[in-house]
Structures are given as structure tokens and as C-alpha cells.
């Protein structure tokens, strides 16, 4: 059942080359990967109705023409009133190819990146490391061939220069390793399943805390060949 739905989503966006965030998160939900509660609102009323129960929320533009949402002002976080929500919807609706707003609960934690790539020599490969917008500057990441085993997750964490950030630093709680392990292993299995369809995936950031690990943003690039 889940497999069919995933195929449907993949096929729908194959020509576009990538899957928009709400649909990517639908795929992850089907595979029991943690995503924030979200709504793909097509109208301002829908947006306000959903957001009013959840403030503060994050809003991100959905558009087939906008891959890098924050580059065009398509991401607003910390929205906490109906008025602001309406304003954000209105602003986003002027962006190119506007197809609604992805609204979700704010999640907190340490920003990790989890990614996948179909490597020419090694096939599906999973990446994990310190995330955020400067991820490519520090490149503090580990990579392993999928599917991951539990010991792979442990060695990935141990190989990060910033591992102390994950293990509790200056009084902060360590992240929930069990949740991270489950997320990475399930994600790696999903990548194996989708290896013929995808080119790469960025989950950046994944918010990890002592409680859980939640995929806050997701980009699935499809194999267009």
C-alpha cells in the first residue's frame, strides 16, 4: 500500500525533477520517519485555520519553480498570529509558480543533515553530519553505504569532529541516539527502495533533541534519466 503511494508521488514529479516538501514529507510519514505535523494550505483561510491551533509555526512556499526556498524569501519561521500568517500567505502567493504554503509546527534541537546519494561505484550511500546552512563550509559529515547497520550509525557519530555536540556539551542533554539510529536505518532502507528513482536527498536540518529526531526540511532530487 505504502509502496504504491510512494510510487505515485515519485511518478507525479518525475518530469519536474524533484519532489516538493509536503509530498516528500508524506513519503517519510509512510515510512515512519518523524516529520513535524504539517499542512499544505492552498488558501489563506486553510492556512490560518491550521496555524491558529499550532502557533508558533514555520511557513514555506510550495512551488515547482522554487527549489531553494530561502533564497527567494520563501521561508518564515516563528509565525504566531493569524494576522502574520495571512501576511505571509499573501507574500508567498506573489512568488513564481506559487502552489500553496507548507505550514508546520516548529521543532527544536541540534541541526543535523542526513542525506542520500546514488553513487556510481557504490550505489545508495547515506550521509549524516552537523547540519544547517553552513554544512558545506565545515563538511563535518560521515558517509556509509546503505543499508546501514546499527554499528554503522555509531561509527558515523564517532567520526564527526562535532560529536560532542551530539553527546551533550556544557550541560546540554545528549541527543536521543536510539531515535537517530532508528531514523537513519529506516531512511537507509527507504533509499534502497528508491534507488532507481532518486539522484540525491537532503534532509537539512533534521532537528535532534533528547526526545526525538524530526525531519524539518527535505529535498528529494529525482533521477530524470
Amino acid at each position: 500500500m505504502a509502496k504504491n503511494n510512494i510510487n505515485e508521488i515519485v511518478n507525479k514529479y518525475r518530469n519536474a525533477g524533484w519532489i516538493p516538501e509536503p509530498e516528500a514529507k508524506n513519503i517519510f510519514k509512510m515510512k515512519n520517519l518523524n516529520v513535524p505535523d504539517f499542512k499544505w494550505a492552498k488558501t489563506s483561510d486553510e492556512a490560518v485555520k491550521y496555524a491558529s491551533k499550532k502557533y508558533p509555526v514555520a511557513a514555506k512556499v510550495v512551488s515547482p519553480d522554487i527549489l531553494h526556498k530561502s533564497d527567494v524569501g520563501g521561508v518564515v519561521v516563528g509565525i504566531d498570529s493569524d494576522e502574520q500568517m495571512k501576511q505571509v500567505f499573501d507574500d508567498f502567493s506573489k512568488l513564481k509558480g506559487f502552489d500553496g504554503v507548507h505550514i508546520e509546527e516548529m521543532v527544536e534541537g541540534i541541526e543535523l543533515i542526513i542525506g542520500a546519494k546514488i553513487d556510481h561505484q557504490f550505489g545508495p550511500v547515506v550521509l549524516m553530519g552537523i547540519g544547517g546552512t553552513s554544512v558545506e563550509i565545515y563538511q563535518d559529515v560521515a558517509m556509509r553505504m546503505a543499508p546501514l547497520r546499527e554499528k554503522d550509525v555509531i561509527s558515523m557519530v564517532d567520526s564527526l569532529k562535532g560529536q560532542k555536540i551530539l553527546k551533550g556539551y556544557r550541560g546540554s542533554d545528549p541527543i536521543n541516539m536510539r531515535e537517530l539510529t532508528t531514523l537513519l536505518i529506516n531512511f537507509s532502507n527507504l533509499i534502497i527502495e528508491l534507488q532507481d528513482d532518486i539522484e540525491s536527498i537532503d534532509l537539512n536540518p533534521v532537528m535532534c533533541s533528547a526526545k526525538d529526531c524530526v525531519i524539518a526540511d527535505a529535498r528529494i532530487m529525482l533521477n530524470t534519466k
Partner: protein
Amino acid sequence: MNLDKIFNAKTMAVIGVSLTNDSHPANVIYNKNRYRYPLTVYPVNPKGGTIKGEYLYKNVADIPDTIDLAVIAARAEFVPDILQSCIDKKVGGAIIVSGGFAESDNEDIQQRIVEMAKKADFPFIGPNCLGIFSPGKIDTLFLPAERLIQPMHGNIAFISQSGGVMVDQMVKFKGQGIGVSTGISIGNKAMLKEIDLLEYLAKDPDTKVIVFYIEGFGKNEGRAFVEAVNKCPKPVIVIKGGRSSQGSHAASSHTASMAGDHRVFSEVMKQYGILEATNGLELSSYCEALSSYPKGISGKLGIITVSGGHGVLSVDYASDLGLNIPPLSASTKELIKQNLSPSVKAIASLENPVDLTGSAVDDDFLNAARVLIKSNEVDCILLLILPYSPGVSIELGAKMSNVCLSSGMPLLAYVPNEERYRMLIEGFELNQVPVSASIEGTVLMAKALIGEKNGEK
């Protein structure tokens, strides 16, 4: 596929031997195997005639003997017919030395010979390769024997995509005292690839450690390779050429941008417990250590040194590599102290490293090692010897080796590589204890031994 006939050939046909040019690759191969190796060698050339008093066969079909291995050094366009004649004669396998195939954009002819061979289940190495070299057994390198420096027979197998790297490494192994079971240049690896040779060498009783020089894998071939290594009970070392090349297309995601070809390669090697050597010192150190000992230590080093400075340098480098130099317990230190000679007792530093000073004599080293072995506080001993020290005898190598070998604990030694200290060094090496000429090399040898026991990577 059965590669036994290729590697244990008793009879060889060399195809392409020239009547007029004795430095033709086929002639070099024919001459060296005929005169220097325990094989029966038959020369083949369609013109026929005689060479050096031997009958020159027009075709392998004419040879009145079964042929284990055909070495083909004729022009590419003749190779398909020659290959067919080998298949028809039921030759055991071939090495195709000739170039002019995929590397020269002649994909078609390469594809043709692969299809022929696959259909007939006929194994071949190459084309565009140097073939195989096994000390005392066989040598298909078309390099004149008098030019080559041969390593001694040993237990390291070296498989290389580049013939030049393979030959050069053989010369280096000779200088480092590293013995080789087989060197294999696989060239275009049209049919037999790394993974086929890995599977063969995993069962080869002469080979203990398998080294690969790899420039690149085909689609998903890297995955198949590491999965095969994972099943191989012998340690595998890789050297990757082409580390600087990155995925050339502009990446659309952070992951694709960061996961360049070499980065992924290195990380996957790490994941599967495959040692990647990034320079010559790492390669020789890994080879020497794994040639003597199986993997299986956790990396708790006990260091015994003549010089405090050498101890410090070894700790620095070991820490850089993530190795552990655990502090010794009070009781262990006390036990070491009890057995020291009186002049050393007063000045030795019994932390880890155990600095026995330049006053130490052989028995001090032996006793300290015995205590460390029994302590269960370390799982590998590094011995840093300066032979300038007057109390160090030339017999220390053999004596120390015996102490450690009977305990089963790996011993790794540093001794300066000078002719004057040869007997001391051989005292170690002839007892299978590896010696490095540098502190860094000694520490790298320890790193190579870290891991779970063979077969449970």
C-alpha cells in the same frame, strides 16, 4: 571460474614470439620463463620456424601438450582468432598483454573477446596488462629480467589496475623486505576484475594479505567489491588512485556536493574494515604488520623505549591516529620495577611509555615485556630500540621475539634501518616480527592490527 591453471601453470604458450626482434614483449616473456622458471614454455608465431633451437609453433593447436596458460602478446586485431584457438584447445586461461583495446577506443574488439571468453567460461587477465608475477613460479612481465628487482617470496598479493604501479611496488617491497605471493596487473580488467581475483586469492594458501591499487570501479562494482571483501577471511588493503577527481557535474544538493567520488570511496572502505593506504609508508607498514599478525587488537599500546623522546613522539603520533596508550596500574609498574637491573631501577620512567633509558640491558626489555603481556592492560607492544645504546645486544631481536611470540601478543619494533644493525633487525624479522625504520611506521603497523578477528569484520 577456475583460475588455478593461470596461477599454477606448468605449461605455457607464448603467442606472438618474434623471429627477428628478440626484445619483442613476447620474446622477453618467453625467454625469462623458459630459462628462469619451472615451466615448460612453447613459443607460437604463425610464421613457424625455429627459435634458439626450439620449434616455433604456428598455432597453439599444433602444440603436442596440454597448455595451462597462454600469454598473448600479438596485435589487437589478431587476438580474437588467437583466443578462439586457445578456447578450442582447452587452454586453462590466458593473459592478454597486448594493448589497443578499450584504452585506445577499440571497445568493440574488447567486447568481442569478452563475449567469446564468457561463452566458453575461459578466464583471461587483461588486455593491456603486464600479467602476473610470482617469485620462483612465473613471470609474464615483458620487462627484461636483468632490469627487474625481485621481491622475495612471501604472503602479500598485489593486484593493480596499473602495471607500472605494480612493478614499482615490487621493487619497493624488495627494499622493505616485504615478501610477495603474487603481483597481478589487470590492465583493462575486461573479464577478470578485482572481485574475481579477490575470490581466488581468498583461497590461495600462499596469500595472507591482499592489496589492491584501484583507480575506479564501474557502476555498482564498488558495492560488489566491498561485499566480497566482507566475506573474505583475509585482510584487504587498498590504495586509491585519482583521489583528486570529483564528480564533475554541478551538484543540486548538499549531499551530492559533499559526497564526491573519493570521499565516498574512503568512507565505505572504513565502513567495511578495509585499510586504505594513502602513501607509501602507510602501505608498507600495513603490509608488514598484517603479513605477520591477524587483525584483532583494540589498540591499547604498551610502549617500551630506550629514549624518552622516542616515547613522546610515538605517543603523539599514536594519539593522532586515535590509538590508546593506557596508563599502567600501580601493581604493573611495581612488577616491572622489581625486575629491573639496579642501575636502571633508579632512573627508568615506568609510565606508559616505559622508558628504560640508555642504561637498560636485554633482560630489562624482556622482563618489562613479560610483565606487560601478563598485565592484560595492553594488547600490543611497541619496542623502540636505539642500537647505539651500549646495553642493547645484537641478540635482543631474537630474544624479544621469542618472548612475545610465545604469548601471542603482537610485537612491533622500531630499529634504524642501517646495515650495521642488520643482525639485530633480522633477529626480529626472521621470527616474523615486523620492524619499521621509523616511529611513524611502527605506530601505523599497530593501527593496521586494530579490528575484529578475521572473518568477523
